[in-house]
């Protein structure tokens, strides 16, 4: 019970911080000297993309924890899957908001530059991971296979982040997490950007907890159904 109210508290905090980010981003912050009001998309798009990275990072660490014999536990497999699913939601939103931002600023909804291509790849790789999880019904096989797949897919994350440095792209380079860690945004705009990162991270935390609870309940239910089916067939031993 205490856990339940704690999770609800995280959810409420997420809702409030996102709400404040929205108000700051839409109405309080000033328009940009070049982009005008279009700059307001910076308070959501990079934050959502960051959460996708974070989600896949958690998936990778949990997958490692499953693969390592000393910490092997199905819980890690379930956490990896939960975080990946949330990551896919955020990756899709990254592509959608990026597209919406690209049309008025660049002039195109989509272009095959390195950043966009590797991000699309990221979405498809983790969709593949989720699809792979549905192929095998053997728990151990599924957990092992998907843990390896998750680690392979993660290779794309640093590639996405560095793509704007390694290749010539239409997409701009990083505003905050650039090579010399010299933010190119200041004042109110910078604070709102930071708040966006924080608020969507809290949203992620809440979502992963909820998704993990669902995965755990499903796991338990599966066990119960199997046990019951065995008992119905064999009778009470």
């Amino acid at each position, binding site marked *: 019970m205490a856990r339940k109210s704690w999770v609800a508290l995280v959810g409420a905090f997420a809702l409030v911080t996102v709400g404040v980010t929205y108000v700051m981003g839409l109405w309080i912050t*000033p328009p940009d*000297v*070049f982009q005008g009001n279009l*700059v307001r998309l910076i308070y959501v798009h990079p934050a959502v993309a960051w959460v996708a990275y974070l989600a896949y990072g958690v998936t990778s660490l949990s997958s490692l924890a499953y693969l390592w014999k000393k910490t092997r536990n199905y819980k890690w497999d379930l956490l990896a899957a939960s975080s990946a699913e949330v990551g896919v939601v955020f990756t899709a939103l990254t592509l959608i908001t990026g597209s919406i931002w690209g049309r008025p600023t660049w002039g195109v909804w989509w272009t095959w530059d390195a950043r966009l*291509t590797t991000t699309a790849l990221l979405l498809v790789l983790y969709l593949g991971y989720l*699809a*792979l999880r549905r192929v095998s019904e053997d728990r151990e096989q599924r957990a092992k296979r998907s843990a390896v797949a998750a680690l392979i897919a993660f290779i794309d994350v640093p590639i996405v982040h560095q793509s704007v440095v390694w290749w010539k792209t*239409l997409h*701009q380079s990083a505003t905050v997490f650039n090579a010399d860690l010299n933010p190119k945004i200041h004042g109110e705009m910078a604070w709102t950007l930071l708040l966006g990162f924080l608020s969507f991270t809290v949203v992620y935390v809440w979502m992963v907890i909820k998704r993990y609870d669902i995965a755990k309940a499903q796991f338990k239910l599966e066990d119960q159904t199997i046990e019951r089916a065995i008992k119905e067939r064999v009778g009470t031993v």
Partner: protein
Amino acid sequence: MGTLIMTPESEVLDTSSRYTTDWKEIPGAKRRKKKIKRSAVAAIFVVVAALVFILYKGLSSALVYFYTAQQAVADKTHLGTSTFRMEGVVVPGTVQPTASGVNFSIRFDHTVVPVVEIGAPPQLFQPSVPVVVVGHFSSNASNVFLSDQIMVKHSANYVAAHPSRIKDPGGAS
């Protein structure tokens, strides 16, 4: 063939099925499992197809997304009149709207390339911004670049338009 010769495998299958007939069946259980698996394999197939498509696009377009105006002019004999993307900064004072679009020049370092654009430029198009134009040189002899698309390559710098925070609901766009 299978009916006459009993292989060890089919024997095993046979005995197991003898046991299972005594068991209580969960209605619809087996069929449902198979269905899920088939859809999962189909999903993987779609994902692999998408992967191949994206990798193809990436290798053919993303690795060399554009040539700078300087590189394009230097590579002109090789590029000929093929279509590619070219990057440069719009030279102030050269932008001239035409009936079919806009004429302007782009510059990279000291190389200037005149561009004839057919079609409407994006709303953020203006002098001194870096742009990527899609098109080709008009002929092997000429340096004029015929473009049918302009993309504005904005920077990662963000500066408040009104430091005194006067509300501007209309904005620049």
